[in-house]
């Protein structure tokens, strides 16, 4: 399993104007809908936000991993957003989030999902990779960063 296989250029949003985590997530879901990887964007948004209400998905260092285990996707999909000016995801964690990874996972793919999550957080722990991601200025560049990180 390679992380870069899950990063798709058409699911990357660079530095949009947004004011809250809800609008950020809505934008990512919309992106997924446009790419045709989620069958019902409205439902998906609802499921992700509901999950978010049960417990925050920010993991510190300006990163959040909102997600849903859902029947609306056929395989694991990741949509990615990079922000110039971060948004607050969690009141306990004042550091604004600047990298958001939205994950959609089929109900059946538990093992794959947990493995992917572990891989993702290990990669993002690296300060240099985080810095590279924040300074990247194209989707292709972001993809390259992930594939180099794994080599």
């Amino acid at each position: 399993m390679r992380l870069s296989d899950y990063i798709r250029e058409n699911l990357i949003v660079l530095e949009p104007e947004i004011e809250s985590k809800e609008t950020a997530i809505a934008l990512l879901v919309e992106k997924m809908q446009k790419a045709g990887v989620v069958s019902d964007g409205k439902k998906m948004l609802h499921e992700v936000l509901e999950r978010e209400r049960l417990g925050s998905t920010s993991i510190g260092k300006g990163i959040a991993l909102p997600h849903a285990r859902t029947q609306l996707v056929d395989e694991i999909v990741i949509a990615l957003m990079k922000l110039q000016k971060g948004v607050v995801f969690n009141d306990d964690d004042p550091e604004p989030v600047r990298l958001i990874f939205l994950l959609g996972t089929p109900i059946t793919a538990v093992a794959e999902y947990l493995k992917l999550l572990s891989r993702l957080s290990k990669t993002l722990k690296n300060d240099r990779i985080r810095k590279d991601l924040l300074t990247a200025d194209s989707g292709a560049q972001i993809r390259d960063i992930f594939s180099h990180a794994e080599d």
Partner: protein
Amino acid sequence: MTLVHNLKNLFNRYRMNTTGRLFFASLFIGIIAGLGAILFFSLLQIVSNMTLHQLAHYYPPEPAGELSGVEASGIPLRRWLLLVLPALGGLISGFLVFSFAPEAEGHGTDAVIEAFHHKKGFIRKRVPLVKSLSAVITIGTGGSAGREGPIAQIGAGLGSYLATLLRLSDDERRMLLIAGAAGGIGAIFRSPLGGALFAIEVLYRRDFEAKALIPALVSSIVAYSIFTARFGYGFLFHTPQYVFNRPIELLFYALLGLLCTAVGWFYVRFFYGTRDSFFHRLKLAPHLRPALGGFMIGAIGFFAPHILASGYGYLQQAMDGSLTVSFMLLAVFLKIIATSFTISSGGSGGVFAPSLFIGGMLGGAFGQFVDHLMPGLLANPSAFVLVGMGAFFAGAAKVPISSMIMVSEMTGGYQLLVPMMLAGSTSYITSSRINLYEKQVNRMADSMAHMGDFTIDVLDRLVVEHAYQPMSDIPVLQENAKLQDILQLVSQNEAITCFPVVNQKGLTGVISLNDIRKVLFDANKAESNLLARDQMRKAVSVTPAESLKSALKKFITFGYNQIPVVDIRNENEIIGILRHEDLIDAYNRQVINRKPTP
């Protein structure tokens, strides 16, 4: 090929189930097996006519029902050729078999039995051809062997091939394998019922493949009709109308049964002993072993030609009462030796005909001996020939029913069914330690062909209620339980590996310890955010009334080793857990209760 295609269309058009498909396929196999038997028998006559008759000028007597019409040439017997011919036959047959189809070695029936139990009924399509040619040459040049093994393997091979062409299931291929064997044997011995019964009986020492009875009967009826349309109806042997009306004779028939066991023991030991301790140890290419075997038979045939080939003509003479006790007794042992040399060296031929010969001669010798000792006691001493034929094979080959029926159908001696039943059963029950067919298994339960049948059968009768662990206080996880909650529950419940996950409405999923082991003990930041709902698998449950068969299916489909048990009236109420090992325990208990003594 178009026939096969039509058969397939027929299956599809009427959406036939297994019974229908097997019926029509068996009809078709009956036709091929019947034609195969005609071809095999004709070739056999041609080869033995060319070698034994025209070359050696040896004209053995023939059974009354199978006269070839060949007139003796009047030229004196070239005895030395009897020494050479079987060796020559062995050379050709050895080359054929070991170059093209080594599985066609030996007596054939065992190969069919093995294909049934261990090879999903599969026989390579070249086997029938190689087997026909090699057997025709082995037997036609005087080898001491019979037609049942080859024709069984030929018919079975054709049946197996047809099943493959029709893309039938493994189970159906096994049925057609049996149907093919039944047709071949039923035809060539003119014994339709015996052939069918033999094919389903010979697979087991103490069981029948009852499911195959109808395909075997159908194929046998057709094959028999085709064969006899060409070669004539009637019995292979002609016998006087025996009657059984002196119950005192039963005593001697029982003794004959015991005698059959004793001789059968020697037969089987010697037969496989020659193979394992002599031929297989020789530093000689397998191709050449049948030639050596042939030479050894020739050496016996040089002095005693009656042990060559099937010897049916001499058996007929025994029935006619024209042989002496000492001739018959000697023939018993010489035949055992000759048969062992022929077949154990790798030659092609069956053990049925030699067994008939051995049993018949033994019975004949015993009957005459009793008659000498107590003249007038026996109504007809030569009836013992027939009973010996049936009883000897019944015990040695573990086919008590078909042996009796085949001998009756071959001789018309139905009047002797009662003595045959007694002698056959006596031999069968006292000979449990000998086995002419090595590949036979004891019962269906020992066959790969039926593996799983019994487990499923047992599990279908048990329900979850008999097996699960009721628990009043089931450890469940709320959907939004955090990692530390999960960790706590896991450490408090060591025996549980699958935790039900619930929300207000009820069971929504299952968390399997296997999936989350890494997360539990070595969580990074992303993982420590995970809730129960992020890690659960699809909810699956069983009810107490559900069969263990259905529970087993769920274990296999979902890969859990524990499944929550829910109340039958309220499927959101979890009342216990069914562990995989509970299911196995319940199965074991049931099996042990069923069979108090193993």
